[in-house]
């Protein structure tokens, strides 16, 4: 899983049936200290994440298909958690 921050959403009328009724979120990728790495991902929402929230994103197809309970879902990235805090051991 990766850390991300919700920076927006995608509006899509024509799509694969798996997207129907689900929210598509734009999330920028974060490093462990909470800084944007420059990358992003469009992920389906499984937890109700909103604007600016730090989230856990599963970026793996088989896990995403298990969450969606659909063995044929063409989805890899899915928001699976909302992060309260990340504690890093000081080195």
């Amino acid at each position, binding site marked *: 899983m990766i850390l991300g*921050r919700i920076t*927006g959403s995608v509006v*899509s009328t*024509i799509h694969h049936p798996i997207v129907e009724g689900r929210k598509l979120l734009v999330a920028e990728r974060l490093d462990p200290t909470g800084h944007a790495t420059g990358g992003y991902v469009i992920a389906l929402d499984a937890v109700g994440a909103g604007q600016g929230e730090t989230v856990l994103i599963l970026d793996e197809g088989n896990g995403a298909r298990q969450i969606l309970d659909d063995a044929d879902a063409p*989805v890899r990235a899915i928001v699976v958690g909302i992060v309260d805090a990340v504690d890093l051991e000081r080195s």
Partner: protein
Amino acid sequence: MLLGRVIGTVVPALLVDELAATPLLWIQPLDQAGRPEGDPLVCADGTRMAGPGQTIYWVASREAALTLDPSFVPVDDAIVGLVDEVRLYPPEDLP
């Protein structure tokens, strides 16, 4: 999934049977603000609705094949849906 823009179509002279009826489109990958990022690639279009100029979102690898029916087909990248609008929150509204 990532954003992309359709920049052209690909017309194959010969193609494996499983992909015979699938449109193939040139895609320019975009960053989240809609700026071109990276090299263009060819996507299969399972929606059969995308055309040049259209913003789309696409997926790679095994998930790309799963957008098509039948899904056991040799594709790398495929379009999952068409983008009407990307709504980015103003940076000052993000924590």
